[in-house]
């Protein structure tokens, strides 16, 4: 890199890309004249940036200027009473819209309400409903108990019947065996009698 190709001012002013900054810095370290020039430029820049900004003597404001004056609708819009009026109008619109959009209630003739009668009627209605509910629950419980009892009785009857049948079955079998034994005895006696009457020797 030669002295003529070095842009020291761009370096000092921060306009050089990062890739060139290193080259310039390297050249400045090796070249005495460019080093001196760089020092002078850096000191100049340092002196320049030492100058501090002054505060603005007075606030820059244009509110009083014609161009900043609000238009008639802006003045109306920003005024307090107008905002109050706008709020009231908005509320009225909301109520009106609510009234229009809500389903119309029953529009019967106006009646005088007897509060005591209404209370009595309500109490009666409540009692009636409670009684009906209790009766229904009692009936349901009784029906269930009856059903359970019947079920238990049926089971008991079935068990007893089964026991009886078993008992009589055994008895019948015993009777049948006894009958068969008796029948055999009778048959033997009849045979002896017949043989005796026929003159046949009866062997014991």
């Amino acid at each position, binding site marked *: 890199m030669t002295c003529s190709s070095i842009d020291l001012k761009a370096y000092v002013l921060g*306009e050089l890309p990062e890739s060139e900054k290193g080259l310039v810095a390297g050249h400045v370290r090796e070249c005495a004249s460019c080093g001196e020039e760089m020092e002078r430029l850096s*000191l100049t820049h340092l002196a320049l940036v030492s100058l501090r900004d002054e*505060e603005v003597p007075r606030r*820059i404001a244009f509110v009083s200027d014609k161009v900043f004056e609000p238009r008639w609708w802006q003045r109306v819009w920003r005024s307090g009473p107008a905002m109050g009026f706008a709020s009231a109008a908005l509320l009225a619109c909301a109520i009106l819209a609510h009234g229009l959009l809500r389903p119309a209630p029953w529009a019967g003739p106006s009646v005088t309400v007897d509060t005591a009668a209404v209370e009595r009627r309500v109490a009666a209605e409540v009692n009636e409903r409670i009684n009906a509910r209790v009766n229904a629950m009692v009936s349901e419980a009784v029906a269930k108990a009856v059903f359970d009892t019947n079920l238990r009785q049926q089971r008991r009857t079935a068990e007893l019947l089964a026991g009886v049948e078993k008992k009589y079955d055994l008895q019948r079998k015993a009777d049948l065996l006894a009958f068969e034994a008796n029948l055999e005895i009778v048959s033997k006696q009849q045979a002896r009698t017949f043989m005796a009457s026929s003159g046949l020797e009866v062997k014991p």
Partner: protein
Amino acid sequence: MIFREVEDRDLIAKARRGDVDAFGILVSRWEKRIYNYLLRLVGNREEAMDLSQDVFLKAWQNLKKLEDADRFSSWLFRIAHNEAFSLLRKNRPETALTADPAVADRSARLYPVELTLAVQHALTRLSDDQREAVLLKVYQGFKFDEMAEILGCPVSTIKSRLYAALDLLKDTLAPVGARGVQ
């Protein structure tokens, strides 16, 4: 800075819709930079203050013409540049250079106020174009292409003015800067 730019964009959008308060916030954010730029350019506080008022008034009147809100700073400084040079062309006399007491004794160490006076004086020795280039670059931190947009001239012209200004300032301020940072 990113958040600041986003907020500026929001404020600009509101101001475009006629929100004076939003524009007031923009003014409070930029007035110091604009005022100091104009002060160093015209060298007179009252004139700088009046010009600042004019700059923000024109900004308000022409805000809808701003096409890109991200370029608000360049656009605002463009207005300030036009206002300042309109005044400079009209009534700025070619004043003779005056001796600067701050740099009279070149051996003594400078106090901050002397350094400030030396810099201010050195800036007055530049041409208006050169001084403006230094102000936009050194004090406002604009890049060359942004300066070209503000001043309405090619980047090469900007660099030419700025480099010439640095050569002039270097002779005066390099020794001052050396003594100022001792």
